């Protein structure tokens, strides 16, 4: 006989399945799909362009807005393509799992991935397997190891991170012409963008600057704050704090504010999270090297759509901007150096040809024009 308790638990189980059945087919989260022609919701139908992040941060929110704009502007739905932003957890395994999962799906047409660890050839192996299945693969924001695994993706779209690091180094040099001792703070020390930016910073800052520490926090913002405190505690002569990933800027400012030691440090950072913009307004950050995640999302979708639909004109137009290296596979989305509105020693400093120097107020105007809160 079927007891009431079993009937009850089976009912609850069925209920849970109803919940799944009601919702799952519709997808959730970050779909940027637009209705397909004829008014039908393409939902899970058609093919997908997936932007796979290395983790979560406002940086990727801006990239998502760019991807959404591209989906609308380029009418991806008309080509039977749906744009999706998939978020990794900063781990190599997370990214490998997702790439393998895509191989088991029949609706993945293109992947734009921000590599968590450039040195990990297993990620490149999975990219190659995807490419073998006919999936178009590009890297965004953080590239694979170009020496060993360049063949695993078609192109890289993002900041030239070595150049970005050099420009931020130049900013530090402009702020402290006599040099100093610096510590760098980043999420994953093995990520290509981290290695390149930190290396570039050393070159741009020059011989008078000495690196005392390089901290990785694994994407944990609590650890990011602890690292700043540890760096300050351990190095009495530390005078320059360098945030390499977007959330490192607020982490640095929080600790410096807590310790009430703003006057002891020059603070230069990458990216402009909304809170970092407020911090610069409040005089807590001296310079920001700002990438253009919006353009990364936009151009990533544009390139993937062109590759999938074999749109030679669009590809040719993009290739014109990819001639900085012999391989012609790097698409630079540009760099901005942001300085406070008044009193910055960098007002007269000259930066590289590909750098757009802006005051904070001009930068916030630009953000508004793009519907962004940060970049």
């Amino acid at each position: 006989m079927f007891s009431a308790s079993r009937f009850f638990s089976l009912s609850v189980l069925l209920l849970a399945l109803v919940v799944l059945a009601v919702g799952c087919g519709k997808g959730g989260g970050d779909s940027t799909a637009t209705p397909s022609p004829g008014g039908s919701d393409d939902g899970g139908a058609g093919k997908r362009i997936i932007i796979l992040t290395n983790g979560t941060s406002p940086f990727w929110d801006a990239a998502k807005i760019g991807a959404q704009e591209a989906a609308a502007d380029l009418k991806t739905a008309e080509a039977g393509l749906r744009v999706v932003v998939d978020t990794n957890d900063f781990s190599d395994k997370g990214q490998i799992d997702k790439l393998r999962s895509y191989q088991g799906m029949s609706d993945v047409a293109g992947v734009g991935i921000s590599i968590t660890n450039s040195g990990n050839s297993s990620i490149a192996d999975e990219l190659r397997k995807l490419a073998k299945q006919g999936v178009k693969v590009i890297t965004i924001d953080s590239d694979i190891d170009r020496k060993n695994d360049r063949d695993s993706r078609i192109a890289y779209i993002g900041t030239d991170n070595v150049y970005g690091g050099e420009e931020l180094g130049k900013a530090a040099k402009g702020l402290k012409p006599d040099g100093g001792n610096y510590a760098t703070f980043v999420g994953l020390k093995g990520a290509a963008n981290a290695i390149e930016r930190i290396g570039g910073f050393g070159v741009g800052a020059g011989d008078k600057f000495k690196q005392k520490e390089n901290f990785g926090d694994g994407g944990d913002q609590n650890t990011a704050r602890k690292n700043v405190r540890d760096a300050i505690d351990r190095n009495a002569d530390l005078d320059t704090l360098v945030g390499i990933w977007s959330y490192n800027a607020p982490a640095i400012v929080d600790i410096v504010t807590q310790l009430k030691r703003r006057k002891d440090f020059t603070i230069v950072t990458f990216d402009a999270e909304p809170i970092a913009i407020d911090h610069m307004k409040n005089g807590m950050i001296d310079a920001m090297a700002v990438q253009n995640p919006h353009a990364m999302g936009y151009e990533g979708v544009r390139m993937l759509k062109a590759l999938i639909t074999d749109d030679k004109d669009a590809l040719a137009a993009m290739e014109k901007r990819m001639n900085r290296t012999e391989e012609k596979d790097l698409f630079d989305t540009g760099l901005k150096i942001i300085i406070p509105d008044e009193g910055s020693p960098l007002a007269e400093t000259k930066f590289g040809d590909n750098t757009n120097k802006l005051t904070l107020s001009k930068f916030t105007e630009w953000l508004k024009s793009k519907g962004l809160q940060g970049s």
Partner: protein
Amino acid sequence: MALNSAGGIQGAQAPSGLSRLYSRYATECGLLIAIFAVIVIAILIDPTNAYLEKPWYNATEILRHASILGIFAMGAGIVIISGGIDLSSGSVIAFSGVICCSMILGLCQFAGLVDDTGNPVTANLPGWILVVAISGTLGVGFIVGSFHAWLITVVRLPPFIATLASLVGLRSLGRVLIQDVNRVFTSNANTQIYIRDATYKSLGNEWYIPVIICAVVALVLFTLMRSTVTGRHLYAIGGNEDAARLSGISTEKKKWLAYCIGTMTAALAGILYSSYVGGAMPDRDGLGYELNAIAAAVVGGCSLAGGLGTISGIVLGAIFLRVVIDAVAKTVKDNPDEFQGMIVGLLVVLAVTFNELRSQKGDRKKFFPGALGIVNIISLTVLMGLVAMLVTSDGDSSTDDSRDKLFAGCLVAGITFAVLVARKMFESRPTGEQALVSTPITANAQSDSSAGGSSSESGKQEIEGDGPGGGEEADEGMDS
């Protein structure tokens, strides 16, 4: 009643082979049905039909993931069966990855496999390096397990504390160690080690290797737990450690064995994990995996109180979890991992509740007693409605989609409320014993008959309800 010649009860139908099998392996049968149900539902609601279009690839992927989870879940399960708990699996996985990769680097230096800058070349490694590194890593797993056993049986730390210390300490040790290893064997102090050898990388990437390893481990542990005195002793220790000790069982030695199995299976999984990700990254490797192992064991029928559980159940528990995770990835196309925790959590609670119900006495269980019950009916209703709304969301703020979300939420909340209120009313009805107490003496004759009916019904249900669970417990009791 008279017994027939075969020892059965005359008049009662002898249980068929199928029902005997079900009685003996009720948890396993339930999990097989659940796995099948999840796959069918995923096929029905996946618009791209991934399971139908790429059945082989998806099946092998699920098996590969489930095997790696299953390997260390079996170890964690044996510790649970013996009445302990091992929270260190995730950290042991990270640490064993560091040990294995460090040994490979060291042995490369020893064998002169270095490039012109003096850095070890980890591609095309000779087989002996892999054998030594893997054996050494398993040896380290044995040492960690022995340390746990010493802390628990000699120092008398509670298992939770002893293995919690390893959970925190081993990962940290791995993070420090890997930098020193890199400093010694390479030209810098990286926080990761990457291995490029194709054979090593194939260990965790070729689907059949983890599956074969898992099958062998399962067979060995199944035999140990089912057919050896040592296995029965482990059940006995989990059921009642004092009684086991008083009956002459060497509980310390058996616990030593259990904790070593726990850490050595975690070390084995760590090697496969490291092979899968292409190296060792101790800051993130195996993060939170101890809970996955415990979840797989509990879903597979292990009781956290000890003394209950089977190896086959744990393996199926691991497969069930991976099937659910994979099904969510296939059906929720956008950011499935955001939904995975919610859905897996829900199904784990349901699976364990279902298991508990089998071993408890059916109708007598009150889920919603008094005010606490009413509050939880409301909270479960809201929760289910919310889950339905969230899962239905597609991020588009158009009016139609908002209406869909609201409809789905209200529908599921309404059904939930109706089911739970029905249950509450069912629980609130007077039972036979309550009726006896509250019925006036003048109504004794009538109430006696109804109470008798109720009792016999209840007794019947008990026998029937205990069929699978009781059979299993009796079976396991025999094992013990």
